[in-house]
């Protein structure tokens, strides 16, 4: 429809008004039919329950949200860990209060305490029995470096001499809040882990990222 140009306005030229009217008329003319829903073919139940995400995000979410801890508490830091598990600090808020007596059901090792060389082969064995993927939190000064026993003839100067450590929580012993912070740091670390390996990495079997 042609807009007639017989009136003049102070704010704009007739040409401009005419152009605006044309755009509206064209859009109106081409918009008489409803646009069909692209998901129309889906059932209603299905439609409400589909969420799009990436494999990395979904697998890392499930891994970090329920870390099961292997029981390996050689010394006194264990009592702070017990406090963390207990009702006051309540680790179950983060979904990981469960402790496993069998390392085969665990994926997190919290190394709470001094490690002697006599005990070291057993800790390494517990670590090896844990299924992949697995993480280690070194809790306290002894676990990080041997602590005050570092120069002793019988003490391992840090768990990272025998097993790979992901997060270090300092303190002697660390406060329960510090351990919770360490666990949440580990969760953030897990969230960044690429789950699907790049193709050139595939032949490196058994190698831990």
């Amino acid at each position, binding site marked *: 429809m042609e807009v007639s140009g017989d009136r003049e306005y102070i704010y704009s030229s007739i040409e401009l008004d005419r152009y605006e009217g044309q755009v509206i008329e064209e859009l109106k003319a081409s918009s008489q039919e409803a646009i069909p829903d692209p998901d129309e073919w889906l059932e209603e139940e299905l439609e409400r329950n589909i969420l799009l995400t990436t494999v990395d995000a979904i697998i890392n979410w499930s891994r970090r949200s329920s870390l099961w801890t292997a029981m390996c508490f050689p010394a006194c830091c264990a009592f702070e860990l017990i406090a963390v598990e207990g009702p006051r600090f309540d680790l179950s808020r983060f979904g990981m209060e469960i402790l496993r007596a069998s390392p085969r059901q665990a994926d997190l090792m919290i190394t709470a305490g001094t490690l*002697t*060389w*006599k005990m070291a082969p057993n800790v390494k064995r517990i670590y090896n029995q844990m299924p992949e993927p697995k993480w280690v939190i070194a809790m306290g000064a002894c676990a990080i470096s041997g602590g005050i026993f570092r*120069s002793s*003839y*019988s003490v391992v100067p840090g768990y990272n001499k025998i097993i790979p450590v992901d997060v270090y929580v300092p303190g002697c012993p660390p406060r329960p809040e510090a351990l919770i912070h360490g666990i949440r740091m580990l969760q953030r670390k897990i969230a960044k882990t690429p789950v699907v390996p790049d193709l050139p990495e595939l032949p490196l079997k058994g190698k831990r990222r």
Partner: protein
Amino acid sequence: MTVALSGKEIASQIEEKSPGSVEESSQDSLVVKSDSLLSVAAFLKDNETLKFDYLNYITAVDYFSYFEVVYQLTSLEHNHTVVIKTRCYSRENPAVPSVIGVWQGADFQEREIYDLMGIKFEGHPNMKRIFLWEGFPGHPLRKDYLQ
């Protein structure tokens, strides 16, 4: 309260039974010759008025010129206690008779002393290291131990 018996008093009783087995004695303790340790231990345990039926602990001290093994004994029946000691002068191959036949609780403590001090307990059925591992060099609680 447990009464701490005088070492001198006990020493005179031991001397009566087996002369020449006490090396020296004081108010706190008495030192027994190591070759008569077993007979003294049996006497202390079986004598009706002493009856030291409980071994509190065994420990050892390195005095450079000799090692001293210390036993604290208690009678649960009479509620009294005494400390007896014995010495061994060899540094290369120190040995003391094991009291495991008299007090069974001596088992692990004698192994600990062997492990950390290097004193052998003759007659112990399982004389091997307990805290450290086979092949560990030296005995770390000795005064001349250097890493």
